C-alpha cells in the first residue's frame, strides 16, 4: 500500500508540473523555469506565477477536499453513489453564498467562506434527517438517501433559483459557484483563509478512517466492536462540512469529484478506509487537474471552465457506477461484498 501511495503522490506531482507547463499561451520550458527564477519576461511571469501556479494549487487542494468529502459521505451512508453534490451539501453551500451575496452584500471570498460552511452544514443535516426518516430499515438504503438528497437539493435549488430570479446582480457572481472554476485566481484569496479548516477536515477524516471500516458492517456490529457510532458520525459530519465548505468557497461546486474520485481508488485499497481517504485525496486532485488541463487545451485560445469539463467526464462515469451498483445488488452470489471485506478486516485486526 505504501508503494501505491508513493505512486499516487508522484502522479499528482507529475500532473501538477504539467499544469504549470501547459496552457493556452505556450512557453518553452526555459521560459517556464525563468518565471520562477525571475529571468522570464513580464507576461510569462504574470501567467505562470499569477495564473497557472495558483490554479494548480487550487486544483490539488480543492479536488482532494471534495474527494475526501465524497469518500466520507459514501462511508457514513454506506452508499457508493453518494457524494456531497448528490446529497445536497454543495447545494446548501451555494444557496448560503447566494443569500450572503444577495441579502447581505457580501462580496469577498473571505466573506463567502462562513456562509459556505453554514450552508454545507445545513445541507448535510437536512439530507441525513430526511434520509433517516424516509427509510424504513435501520440501515439507510441507497435509494432513500439519494432520493432525500435529490429532494433537499431540489428544495435548496428552488430557493436559490428564486433568489437569482429576483437579483440578477447576484447571478453574475453566482455563475462562479454553479460552474466551478480555477481561473482568475479568485479562489486563491479564499484559500488563504480556508486552508486551516481544510487541514483540520483532512485530519478528522484520517482519524476516523478505522472507525469507518467498522461502520461498514452496520451500526450494531460497529457498536458491539466498541466503536462510538454517534461520535464517529458527528466527527464525520464535521469533517464533511469543513472539507466541502472550504473547497466550495475556493473553487465552486464542482460536480462528480466527490462521487468518482473515491471509486477510482476503491479497488486499490479494497475498501480499507485508512488507505481510501488519502488515496481518494490524490485521485481527486488528479481528476481536477486533468480536467482543468483538458479545458485549457481543448478549445484554445479559449478555455472551458473545469466544472464543465468535469461534468462531461463525470456524467458517463456516474452512469457506469449506477450500472455497476445495480449489477452488484442483483448478483446475490457475489462472494466479496464491501461488508464482507470489512468484516474480514475487522476480525483479523
Amino acid at each position, binding site marked *: 500500500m505504501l508503494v501505491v501511495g508513493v505512486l499516487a503522490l508522484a502522479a499528482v506531482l507529475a500532473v501538477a508540473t504539467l499544469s504549470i507547463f501547459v496552457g493556452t499561451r505556450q512557453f518553452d520550458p526555459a521560459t517556464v523555469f525563468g518565471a520562477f527564477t525571475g529571468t522570464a519576461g*513580464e507576461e510569462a511571469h504574470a501567467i505562470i506565477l499569477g495564473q497557472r501556479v495558483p490554479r494548480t494549487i487550487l486544483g490539488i487542494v480543492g479536488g482532494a477536499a471534495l474527494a475526501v468529502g465524497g469518500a466520507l459521505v459514501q462511508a457514513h451512508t454506506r452508499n457508493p453513489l453518494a457524494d456531497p453534490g448528490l446529497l445536497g451539501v454543495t447545494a446548501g453551500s451555494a444557496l448560503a453564498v447566494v443569500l450572503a451575496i444577495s441579502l447581505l452584500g457580501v462580496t469577498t471570498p473571505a466573506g463567502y467562506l462562513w456562509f459556505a460552511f453554514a450552508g454545507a452544514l445545513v445541507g448535510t443535516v437536512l439530507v441525513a434527517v430526511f434520509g433517516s426518516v424516509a427509510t424504513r430499515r435501520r440501515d439507510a438504503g441507497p435509494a432513500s438517501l439519494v432520493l432525500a438528497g435529490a429532494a433537499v437539493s431540489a428544495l435548496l435549488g428552488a430557493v436559490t433559483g428564486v433568489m437569482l430570479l429576483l437579483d440578477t446582480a447576484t447571478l*453574475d457572481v453566482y455563475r462562479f459557484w454553479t460552474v466551478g472554476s480555477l*481561473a482568475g485566481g479568485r479562489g486563491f484569496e479564499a484559500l488563504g483563509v480556508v486552508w486551516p479548516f481544510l487541514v483540520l477536515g483532512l485530519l478528522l477524516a484520517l482519524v476516523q478512517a478505522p472507525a469507518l471500516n467498522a461502520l461498514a458492517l452496520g451500526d450494531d456490529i460497529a457498536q458491539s466492536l466498541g466503536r462510538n457510532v454517534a461520535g464517529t458520525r458527528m466527527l464525520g459530519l464535521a469533517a464533511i462540512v469543513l472539507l466541502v465548505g472550504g473547497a466550495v468557497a475556493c473553487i465552486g461546486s464542482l460536480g462528480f469529484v466527490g462521487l468518482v474520485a473515491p471509486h477510482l481508488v476503491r479497488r486499490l485499497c479494497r475498501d480499507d478506509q485508512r488507505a481510501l481517504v488519502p488515496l481518494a485525496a490524490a485521485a481527486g486532485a488528479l481528476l481536477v487537474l486533468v480536467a482543468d488541463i483538458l479545458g485549457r487545451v481543448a478549445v484554445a485560445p479559449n478555455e472551458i471552465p473545469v466544472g464543465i469539463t468535469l461534468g462531461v467526464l463525470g456524467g458517463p462515469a456516474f452512469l457506469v457506477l449506477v450500472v455497476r451498483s445495480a449489477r452488484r445488488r442483483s448478483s446475490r452470489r457475489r462472494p466479496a461484498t464491501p461488508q464482507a471485506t470489512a468484516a474480514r478486516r475487522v476480525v483479523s485486526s
Partner: protein
Amino acid sequence: MSRPSADRRTTRLLNALAASAATIALLAGCTSGAAADADADADSADRAGRTVDTILGEVTVPEQIDAVVVIEGRRDLDIALALGLPVVGFPIEEEGALELESPLADARAEAEANGATGLFIADEINIEAIAEAAPSLIISRSDDVEPIFDELSAIAPVLAIGEQDVSTWQDDLLLVGEATGTTDTAEALIAEYEARVAEVSASYADVIASKLVVPLGTDAEGSQVRPNRLLSNVLQDVGAQPSAAFAESIETGEGVEFGPEQLLDAHKDADGIVALVNVADEWAATQANPLWTQLPAVAAGHVVRSDKSTHEGGPITALHALDVVEALYATF
C-alpha cells in the same frame, strides 16, 4: 410561463362582451343621421389602423395608441422612449445590476413620472401583468414574443422587432415609426445619429485612421470581442480601424473568445480599448491583473469603460455609445 385557462376564459368573455357592445353601438349608429355616419366612418378608419410587415408577419396597429408595453427592455424600450410613445410598462431592471448608469435612465425616469411601471423581471414575461396594463400596442424582440404570440395578440397587436444579429436598430426604428405614425421622428433620430457620427469622424479623423481599437469584454474567465454589439457597430460606423481580434470577429461575423492567459497576446496590437465590464469588483480585478496593465493601450491610458448596456439598444443607446467612442478617441 403559466397561462391559467380561467384567465383566458375571462379575457375571452370580456372580449365577447366588448364585441357585443360594439355591435349594438354600430346598429344604433345606423339609425342616426349623416353626421353620425361620418363619425362612424372615422371610427372605422381608426380601427383599421396601420398595417406593417414584421418578422412574424403582418400586424395592424391602431391609429390611436394610448399605451405601449415593451417586453425585452433594451432595443424595444429604447425605440419606444425615443419615439415618444406612451410607454406604460417595461421589464424591471435590477438595482445594482450594473455599476454604470443606464443610457436609458433619464428617458425611463421620465416615462415613470408619466405613469410607466415595471411589470415583471426581465426574461420572466408575465402575461397577466401585461394584460393588466391594458396596452394598445406591444413591442418586443421577436425571439421573446414568438412562443407566446397568440396570447399576447389576444391582448394587443404585437410589433415584433429584431436584435443585433437580425436587423439594425435603424430598421426597427423605422418599422415602429411606420406602425405608430411617427416616421418623421424616426427619420429625425436616424439623421441626428448620422450627423453625430459624421461629426466624430471628422473631429478625430487622423486618430481614427491610425489607431487600432477593440471593444473588449473581460472578466476572470477571459476576454471576448463581438462584432454585432451596438457599440461595435458604432465603432464601425465612425470608421474605426479594428484590432486583429476585432477584425477577426467582423470578418467571421461571430464573436472571438480568449482564455485568461491570452489577454495580453490577443490584444497587444490595440492602441485603444473600450473595456466592457459590468460590476465594480470585476473592474477592480481587471485593473489589478498584470496582463491587463501590460497591454500597450492600458499603459498609455487609452482605455474607456462601458458595460453590457451598450451591447443592444436603439437611438438613445447608440448616441450614448457614440459618446463612449468619442471619449476613447479623445484620449489620444
